[in-house]
Each structure stands twice: as C-alpha cells, then as structure tokens.
C-alpha cells in the first residue's frame, strides 16, 4: 500500500546528506521504484549534483542496491540493462538550496523543480548538540516554516500539474522531521500532540526568540573585539605557538576569537533552552520550529514526525548501518578506550533510542497516508512520535551492562597492544562527574604550565605533548558529560498511540516491508550484534592487537618524506642540524684571536649577558639578531671567512647531528633541492655550502674589507622564513605541497605549515605538542656519541697574525 501510494510521485527531500536523509533516499530508491526524487542540498564548492553523487550516493547504504542493479535491475524495479548510476540519473534531480536562508536560496531552476513536487520530506536540521544558538534558530526554528512558504509559493507558480496530479495553487504535502525532545525535560507521559497543546509548554513568542538570537550573535561579536578580550586571546595564541611570528599569531588569535564567539553562542543557546525547560538548544529550537511551522504554513498540509535518539539500522539497508558519529558513539568509544571513568545517569532511567530504519518507515507511512483532515474538512497537522521508551524501554543500567560485557569480550587495544579493561560505572550524579573531571583538568593545566617554562626538547618535550593529549581527551569527556548529561535527566515517556494507529492500518505486506514497530527491537541482540560491531568499525577502534608492524608509523612517514616525488627539502640549522646557536658561533669566532685573559673575560661577559639575550630572543628573534650582530662591526671579512672554516670542524660539525646531516644528503641524492634557511650570519655558515643547493642566511654589509654590523636584510626568522621559502619555491618552480621542512621550534610554524611534509626535529614543548596532534613526523637526532665535549664555545687560539676580531667590548 505504501509503495502504491507513493509510486509515480515526485518527492523533495531536504537534509539528504544527513544520517536520516540518506536512509530515506536509499529506501525510496529501493522500495518505491517508480517515485522520483528532488534533493535539496547546499551546493558547497562543487555544486549540488556533485554533492549528491559524492556525499549521498557513494555512501555504503547504497551498496546493496548498487549490487542488485549490477545483478538484475528489473528485479528491483529498474529498467532492463540499466545501471545504478543511470537509474539515479533518471530519478534524482539535485537542486541547490539552503533551509537556513529565506526562500531556501533557490534559483529559477530550483523553484521550477520545487513546483513539480507532490510531497516534501523536511529532514534538514542541525542536530549537533553544541551548535550555536543562532545557527540552530536559522535551521531548526525557521527551516520548516521556510520550506512551507516555499512550497506554497511553488504551488502558485505551478503551470503544469505535478506527476502526482497536483494542480496550480495546490501545495504539496510537507512531512517535517522533529524530535521527541520538544516535550522538554520532564517526567511522565508526552503524548503525540502539538507542543502548545501540552500543559507544560511555556508559550513564548518565537519571533522574539529569533530576533534575540540574532542580536546575541551581534553582541558576542562585539564582546569578542574588546581590547581586553583580544589581548587575552592573543596571550592564549602566544602560549600555544610561542614566537611563531606576527602572521601566525594573528591567524591563531582570530581563529580563537571565532571559536570564542561560537562558544558564547553555544552557551547562550544552552542557557536559553534550560531556562525554558529544554535539555539543549536543539530541542528548544525544534520545539519553536514546530510552532512557527504550524503558525505560518498558510494552507500547506503538514505532518510532524518526532523520533527520539536515532541510532544504527535494525535491518535496512543492512543491520548496523550508520552514518557519521552520532550522539551515543563518541561516549561509547571514549568509554571503550577507558577514558570515561564515570558517566552521570540513573540505572533505571530510560535511554530512548530508535533504529533509523524504523524512523524511515514511519515517515514513509505518514507520507503514504497523506494529509489528515478534521470533521470540518480542515487539514490538521498530523503528529507522530517514534520512540522506544513507552513500549520497549531500554534502561540505562541495562545498556551500560550490555556495552561493558561486549567490550569485555571484545576489548579495544591500546598503542602498546594491551587490551583496555573498561571501567565499571557507579552512576553518580552529573555534578560529581563534572567536578572530578574538572579537578583532573586543573591538575593537567598546572603540570602543563610547569613544563612550558622548562627549556625541554626532544623526548622530554614529548611528555608535554602527551599531557596535552590527555588534556584534550579530558576536555572532550567533560564536553560529553555536559552535553549529554542533560538528556539522562529527560525522563518523559513518549506516547505512540498515533504511530500504532498508523501501524495497525497497514496491511501485513506493508508491515513486513516497512517495520516501524519499536517492540520489534530486542535490545541485547541489537546492542551486541548490530550496533556495537558496526560502531567500532565506524569509530575505527583498534579491536585487534596490531601485528608487530614491519613498518611503524614513523617509518611510513619517513618513507613519504624520502619519496622521489618530493621536490624540496628545507632545513632550519640551530637545534635541527646542529646543537649550537649564533651566540656560540660569535663567542667562538671572537675568542679565536684573543689571549687567554681576554678570552676568559669574553666568555664571562657573554655568559653574564645570556639572560638578556635569551629574553630578547624569545620576544622577537629578528630584533635579537639585529641587536646581536652589531658586534661584528669592524670585523675583517677575510679573517672571519678563514676562521669560520675552522669553526665548521671545531664547533658546527662537532655539535652536529650526524643523522640530520645524513638526511640532507639523502634528499640531495634523491634529486630534491635542499635549502638551508637560517638566521646565522652567512660567513659563519658558508662552510656548510656543499651540503645544500642554496643557503639563505643573514647578510651583513661590508666596506673596505670589514663588516659594518648592519644587516642588509631582515634575518630570515619566523614568518620571514615562510616568505623566503615561498619565494624560493616560486622562483624555482617547486611545489610546496611536495616539499619537506625540518625545524625544531614553534617559531618555524609558518614554514612547517607551508609544506606538505613537515618534520619536527628535537622539538621543544610547544612544537612537540603541535606535531603530535597533527601527526607530523618527529625525529630525535642527537650529537654523535663520542663527539668532543665543548662546554664553552671558545675558539682554539691561532698564532697566525693577530688582526682585529669581532668586537668584544
């Protein structure tokens, strides 16, 4: 009956790229072979058709149908010799649009297509539980009403009747997907009625809410731009990146500001929702969305279908099918990884979960039945709930037991290949869990700050990076508790009288094909054999100890870095290839031609200055180098050149990382260009020239055979390095995406980010954290064991003529 009712109809679907939408499209294509579909999707960069092809039809939901078409298209209602793709092309029209915009953002073609539909299923929504208030308002609150308005306008524009026979002025039937949680956080029965019919509903003016949400966005934007806020954000950016240069810091500051605004809007949404008795902004805006739809539908026949929490499929298209990471999955994954030691909730509370295929069937059932009319022939909104709580409740305690027993039998493995034992929850209150997590987070914050001030590098610095990761995980766990905790307090029982009314009106064949009966779910089977196996696959949890991999992740990354396809390898010098710095080079060169007492004096003086130099360096490297290099004023060029050659052996190579030098040479052997970008003075690094194709260093002007202490150009540090790299690549026609960069410090971040293959070498804490998070190759290169110990960088004395030195006073 359902199939017959819908056959020959043209149906527009919104939200078809979502979980429910994809399931709907698949079901309609498969089970109603002679209907046509109009899919309204946001065009993105690629255009609507391409999004339909890539984001919908490529999904594994269609695997069964695709295979059936390859096998025998006629058996599944297709035309002889037709492929799946040809069938899609014949039956699906993609139109670009956005339910977040008035008029749905349709162009003429879109409006024309919309005027030719018989039926609309509106399943577009922003379901993320932490979406910003105004986004939720635009999509969830105003969306349904906009669709209704567009359908009404389309009906007026219609010239030819629709395939289903609607004539000009007859609006298409709109089935809008809402949520059970519009009933709000409360106990007791929640019947299938319009929200304002409930005695518990606080009736407010939804239009005022819209205005205020938009105003709240403007206010947040304003507040994010106050000098104090901007200063704080900048501090945070510097804290995370270190001396990465103005552009990088600015970029990070701006992204932090945007994040701050969004967070403020999320908080605003949650606050407003809970003030009116809703668990979150999603439920709240959905509730007002129903109100606005009913109020503004202007004769458009409507139905509202309210599912509870939609989860993986019971049977259709295949058991366990799921798209994306839903509400429960992140929590379950975190639990299986042993991260969530506790989660709030009461064991006898109901977790109202409903498999997606049951929801799809209910929606199609409503579509097939057509608009309802009261005794006066007036179309009345049809409201149908589909949930499990009233007829087949899954208790929270039972769910936790099922999950724990399954993961005990199928443990997730940690990175050391040990199975992770899942914790036993004691069902504490939400507050206690929050407090525990907050305490842990504060501890990590403190530890992190302590690590930050220590000058750590390499492996020690990675401890910091690990801490950072732990902090991230905790933050996420805390986020789940905050987001979903509210739902554990929703103890409403959603009534299903009208759903069963519909169910009972179906003939046995339909009941067989379109199962929408929540009592058909056997929870232990569903959780153990359907949901969890599919979920761990989706979440890519490590369910088997990885074999002692012949190639570790680092080896793989290293192989990529050393692939012949790479074009350029750019290196930083200090602490990347050599454990030394410009101050040491200077001290070495300056002390080379001094007698013993003067040498000592120079060393003591340089040591005494070290703190000042260091703080200058930390604040701005370019300024530091400019200031520092003034000491080379009056130094004879030739003599420095000769001394630098000696310094290569005595200081640079002695302090070099042989593995690093080897890497430079490997790149060259592979035919990559090698480039050294350093803030060191050119004369000091000239002896390394045979290693590289090109060296970018600080150039100092000279006159009459001596240096004058003035730099010819900005020493390449921070963003200057980035720019130098970009210029070099442009000049030589090299692709940075195919290039490798090696550096040790977050001040090189712009350079590292510019290339396709960044490598963090002996990274200091901040870079270690960033590299780890982004999955960059991390190398630990050490000086050669057996290298002479140079405690102080003093040049061995030379006797050859004692000409002038770099300034030492």
């Amino acid at each position, binding site marked *: 009956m359902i199939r017959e009712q819908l056959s020959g109809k043209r149906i527009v679907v919104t939200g078809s790229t979502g979980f429910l939408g994809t399931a709907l499209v698949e079901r309609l294509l498969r089970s109603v072979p002679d209907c046509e579909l109009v899919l309204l999707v946001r065009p993105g960069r690629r255009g609507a058709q391409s999004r339909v092809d890539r984001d919908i039809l490529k999904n594994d939901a269609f695997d069964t149908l695709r295979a059936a078409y390859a096998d025998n298209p006629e058996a599944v209602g297709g035309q002889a010799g037709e492929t799946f793709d040809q069938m899609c092309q014949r039956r699906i029209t993609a139109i670009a649009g956005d339910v977040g915009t008035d008029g749905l953002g349709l162009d003429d073609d879109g409006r024309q297509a919309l005027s030719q539909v018989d039926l609309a299923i509106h399943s577009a929504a922003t379901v993320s539980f932490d979406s910003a208030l105004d986004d939720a308002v635009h999509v969830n609150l105003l969306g349904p009403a906009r669709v209704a308005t567009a359908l009404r306008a389309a009906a007026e524009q219609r010239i030819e009747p629709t395939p289903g026979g609607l004539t000009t002025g007859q609006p298409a039937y709109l089935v809008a997907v809402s949520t059970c949680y519009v009933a709000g956080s409360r106990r007791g029965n929640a019947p299938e009625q319009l929200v304002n019919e409930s005695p518990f509903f606080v009736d407010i003016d939804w239009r005022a809410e819209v205005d205020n949400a938009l105003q709240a966005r403007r206010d947040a934007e304003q507040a994010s731009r106050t000098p104090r806020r901007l200063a704080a954000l900048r501090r945070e950016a510097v804290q995370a990146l270190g001396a990465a240069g103005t552009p990088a810091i600015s970029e990070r500051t701006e992204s932090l500001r945007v994040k701050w605004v969004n967070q403020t809007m999320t908080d605003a949404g949650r606050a407003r929702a809970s003030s009116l008795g809703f668990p979150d902004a999603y439920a709240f805006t959905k509730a007002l969305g129903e109100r606005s739809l009913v109020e503004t539908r202007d004769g458009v026949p409507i139905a509202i279908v309210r599912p509870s929490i939609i989860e993986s499929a019971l049977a259709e298209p295949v058991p366990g099918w799921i798209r994306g990471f839903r509400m429960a999955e992140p929590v379950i994954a975190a639990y299986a990884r042993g991260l969530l030691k506790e989660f709030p909730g009461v064991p006898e509370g109901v977790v109202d979960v409903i498999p997606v295929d049951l929801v799809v069937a209910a929606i199609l059932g409503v579509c097939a039945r057509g608009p309802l009319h009261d005794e006066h022939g007036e179309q009345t909104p049809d409201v149908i709930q589909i949930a499990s709580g009233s007829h087949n409740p899954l208790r929270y305690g039972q769910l936790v037991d099922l999950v724990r027993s399954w993961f005990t039998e199928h443990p997730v493995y940690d990175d050391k290949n040990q199975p992770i034992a899942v914790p036993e929850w004691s069902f504490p209150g939400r507050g206690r869990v929050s407090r525990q997590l907050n305490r842990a987070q504060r501890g990590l914050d403190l530890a992190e700050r302590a690590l930050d001030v220590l000058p750590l590098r390499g492996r020690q610095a990675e401890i910091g990076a690990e801490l950072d990761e732990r902090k991230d995980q905790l933050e996420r766990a805390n986020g789940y508790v905050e987001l979903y905790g509210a739902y554990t307090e929703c103890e409403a029982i959603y009534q299903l009288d009208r759903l069963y009314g519909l169910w009972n009106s179906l003939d046995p064949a339909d009941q067989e094909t379109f199962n929408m009966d929540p009592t058909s779910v056997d929870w232990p089977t569903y959780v153990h054999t359907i949901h969890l196996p599919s979920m761990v696959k989706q979440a890519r949890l490590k369910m088997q100890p990885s074999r002692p991999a012949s190639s570790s992740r680092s080896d793989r990354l290293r192989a990529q870095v050393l692939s012949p396809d790479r074009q350029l390898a750019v290196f930083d010098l200090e602490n990347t290839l050599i454990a030394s710095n410009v101050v040491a080079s200077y001290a070495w060169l300056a002390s080379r031609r001094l007698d013993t007492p003067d040498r000592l004096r120079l060393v003591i003086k340089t040591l005494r200055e070290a703190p000042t130099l260091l703080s200058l360096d930390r604040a701005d490297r370019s300024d530091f180098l400019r200031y520092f290099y003034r000491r080379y004023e009056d130094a004879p060029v030739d003599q420095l050149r000769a001394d630098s*050659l000696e310094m*290569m*052996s005595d200081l640079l*190579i*002695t302090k070099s990382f*042989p593995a690093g030098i080897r890497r430079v040479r490997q790149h060259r052997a592979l035919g990559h260009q090698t480039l050294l970008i350093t803030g060191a003075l050119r004369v000091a690094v000239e002896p390394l020239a*045979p290693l590289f194709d090109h060296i970018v260093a600080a150039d100092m002007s000279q006159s009459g055979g001596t240096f004058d202490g003035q730099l010819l150009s900005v020493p390449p540090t921070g963003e200057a390095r980035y720019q130098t790299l970009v210029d070099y690549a442009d000049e030589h026609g090299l692709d940075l995406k195919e290039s490798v960069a090696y550096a040790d410090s977050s001040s090189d971040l712009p350079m590292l980010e510019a290339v396709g293959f960044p490598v963090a070498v002996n990274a200091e804490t901040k870079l270690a954290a960033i590299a780890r998070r982004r999955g960059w190759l991390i190398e630990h290169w050490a*000086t050669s064991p057996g290298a002479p110990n140079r405690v102080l960088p003093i040049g061995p004395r030379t006797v050859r003529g004692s000409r002038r030195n770099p300034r030492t006073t």
Partner: protein
Amino acid sequence: MATDPRRQAPRPGLVLDVDRSTPPLLFHHGDNFRLEKLPAGRSRVIYAPEPLPGLPDPEGSIREALLNPIDHDPLPSLLTPGMKLTIAFDDVSLPLPSMRRPDIRQRIIEQVLEMAAEAGVDDVHLIAALALHRRMTEAELRHALGDRIYDAFAPQGALYNHDAEDHDNMVVLGTTRHDELVTMNRRAAESDLLIYVNLNIVSMDGGWKSTATGLSGYSGIKHHHNVATMRESKSFMDRHKSELHHSNWRQGDVIKNHGPRIFQIETTINNNTFGYDGPLSVLQKREWEWSARDRATFMGMKKGLDLMPSRARRSVFNNWKAPYELTSVQAGNVESVHEVTLENCLKQHLVPVEGQTDVLMFGLPYICPYNVNSVMNPILVMCLGLGYFFNMYRGKPLVREGGVLIMSHPTPWEFHPVHHPSYIDFFEQLLAETTDPLELERKYEKQFAEDEWYIHQYRKGYAYHGVHPFYMWYWGAHALQWLGRVIVVGGDPRSVRRLGFQPASTMQDALELASDVVGPQPTITYMHNPPILMADVT
C-alpha cells in the same frame, strides 16, 4: 739511563705455556683493562721482546746517516742554491701513541733544514704526507715538527697538509706494467729533490709506500687498497709476501723513472711504549714478574679508570706520550734503506712461534693509527683486530684456518663526527645491509669516494676521506676470509653484531661460544700486544 742493566741487555720475546701457577693475564680493553685467567695446559701467551736500547746520540746518528747514505750521494751534495726542495713526512698516524717531544721527525728535519740553509736553498716546502687521512691540526704539526719549524714555515704557507683532492695540484706520473696509475702531489713531483722523513713503527710502513701512497690520491691508491690485493697480502706486515707492497713497489718504479729525485730517511723506534717506570710501566712487564708495587699500581689504576666517565678515560690515554727511543736511522736509496729498516724493525718485534692455534686472543688497546686524539669507533676496532693485529705474522697466520678470534674491547657505538663522518654512515647504513667486503667495495666504494660533502670535510675540515672506512674494512678482508668466527668480549652487543661478530660478556662465555666452532678443549694463543710483537710462525 745506562744504570739498569736490563735496558742494555733486553730479553727476547717469549712464548709462555700457561699452567696452573700462571697468574691472570692483562688484556688491553680499549681505555681500560681486563685480567683473565686462561685455561692451563692448552694455552700459551706470546710476549714482545723487551725494548731494545736506544741510540745513545740520536742527533749524531742522524747526521751520520745524512752524510753517509746507503747507495746514494750525501745529502749536502744534493743541495744547491735556487733549487726546489720538498720535505715530506709521516703524519699523525705514526708513531702510536704519539711520542714525547722532541719527535724524531723534528730532530731529522731540523738537521735537514740546517744543511739546506747552509747550501743556500730557500725554496723549501714541508708537506704532511697523509694520503687520504685527516689533516693534522696546528697542535699536531707543532708536536711533530716543533714550534721553531712551525713558526718559520706555516705562516708563509710553506708547511701544510697534502690534499689529494686538490686536482690542480696533483700530477699523474704514469702507469705501472699492471696498469696501476701513479699520482703525486704536484709540489713534491716537481721538486728537484724530495726528502721523505719516515717513522717505522711496524714493518708495513716505509719503503715505496711512503711516497707512492703518502703523497698520492684515490686514483692511485685504489689499485692496492682493495679487497683482492689485501686478500693476497699474507701478511701485509711481511713486505716480501705482501701484494700491497708489491703494488707500491711497482708504483715506485714509475716514480723512480718519472718522478722527482728521492732521498729517503727511515727510522725505527724501540718497544718502550709505556716507560720503564711511571704509572703505565706495568703494562710492558710480564704478569708473573709484577712486584707488589706493580700490582698495587695496576689495581689502583684499574679502580680509577672504572670510576671515570669514558670521556675522561679517553683524555687520560690521549694525553699519554710514549717515551720511545730511536733505535736506527738510515738514509739514501729507498729500496736499500728500507731493507735495513725492516731488519731493525723485526729485531724489535719478531718472536718465533711454533705451530698454529685453534683460538687466537687479542686485548685491543685504546689506539690505532686512525684515532689519534679521536675516538676508537667500531670500524676501527675491526681494523685494529682483524687488520693490524691479525696480520702481525710472518709465515702463516697464528690461528689455523677456520679458527676463532677472541678480542677484548668495549666497542662502544661512538664516532668522532669531525674526524670520521663517512664512518658513521658506513656503519649505520652500509653495515646494516652487508658486511661482505667485496659487496661493499662493488656497491658503495665509488659513491663514498666521490662524495662531495666528504671531500669537502677532508679538504677543509679534519675528516678522513670518504673512502677511508672501506679501506679499514679491506684491511680485515684476509682475516674475515680466514676465520671461522670472531667474538668480542665486553663489547657493546649492538655494535659488535653490526660488525658481524658475536658479543660475549665474559672470557668464559667467549670460550663457550668458540667451542661451537673449534670443538671442546681447543688450543689457545694469547698475543700480548702492545708493546708490539710480530709472530714468526713455523
């Protein structure tokens, strides 16, 4: 000096059969020592002859040699005003350890320069004939030649290190009848007279090897520094049985015909490596003759070394300058002079030994020719053991074919980044792939030899030439082919395995491992070296 009668009447070398009363024996173990008890009844120890007496008047003997050379005109008669004179001398790899000042080279060159000055020669260059070794530092040159010579010549650019990769300043002298290219430093080749000042510590040094190798470059040296030649040199310490030397002598013929006139000065020193008295003197005494004081000194030294970090131990030993004494000096015609030198050299080193052994043992010391003021890296451990020590034989190898070599050395995974850059890559990359000398030679020698960065480091820094680690490996090629197994006692297992050898933590374990190859109750020979000895095996 003449007071101790033992110094005037040194005892010859000795082969001692170990019995139950033999005390634990001293093994050099890098920059430390081990005392090991060897199984009685089937073990023997070979001791070097005691130091021969030094020449009482070295200056006089040198003068005598220069004025009355062998098969050659006296030096003063060769010196004429306006002539181009070049003095080439052995580099820092000789002697081992470095000797106390004044170095023999200084003593000889001072007299040569004096004669040259008297004759009015003012175009004099001094060249360290280091072939593909690392350049000598200022301090090392000052040590070898003295401050006076250094200050007089170095600032003018007339005292410098040979640079085999400075192609403008290398000349081809010709090819031998075996098609071996002969190249030479241009200044030396184009001089009216080339005086070579040699210092023989072992019988491999000197002769045509001084000029044909020392002043040559890769294109000339590769003809005898290769696996095939080294496998045919049995041993390379035995000049007349050594293919290495035959090749050098053929190149010498070319030099004779197409090169500069050569005045060869060769010297030999005695075995007084650690001194007759002083802290290390115990090292050149025979264990059962140690006095209570010797034992106390040794135990104290051992304890002290155990407590020191390895860097400190290394510098203690690197600072040791040997009180070597000159035992002979001869000058004149290269070939004639060298025969006399060999005679004098063998007089100090040769010990007659009867029969081969199943298991041969060495205690490897902290130094070899290529880590003066540097680090003894694993490749040098291999070269010192399987190259130098193994080849200290005349007749046939001390160990039977298929026998086992047990060496004692800590073999740390340590490299001097300035001196041995190509060694690091050779060890960490190439040896990970293969330890077969032929395969290494075939696949990688050319690549390393022509590597731009290594060449740069050799020329401008203080690095051994890129190809040098290959030569170290070839030096051991004869032994690698001969031996059934090599075991390193007390070595870092990681680096020992990388070398293709077996690590053992104690001598007991090593002997257990050896019995897999040579069966139970094998005969054992311990070569107690240094002081240096050479086995004359019959």
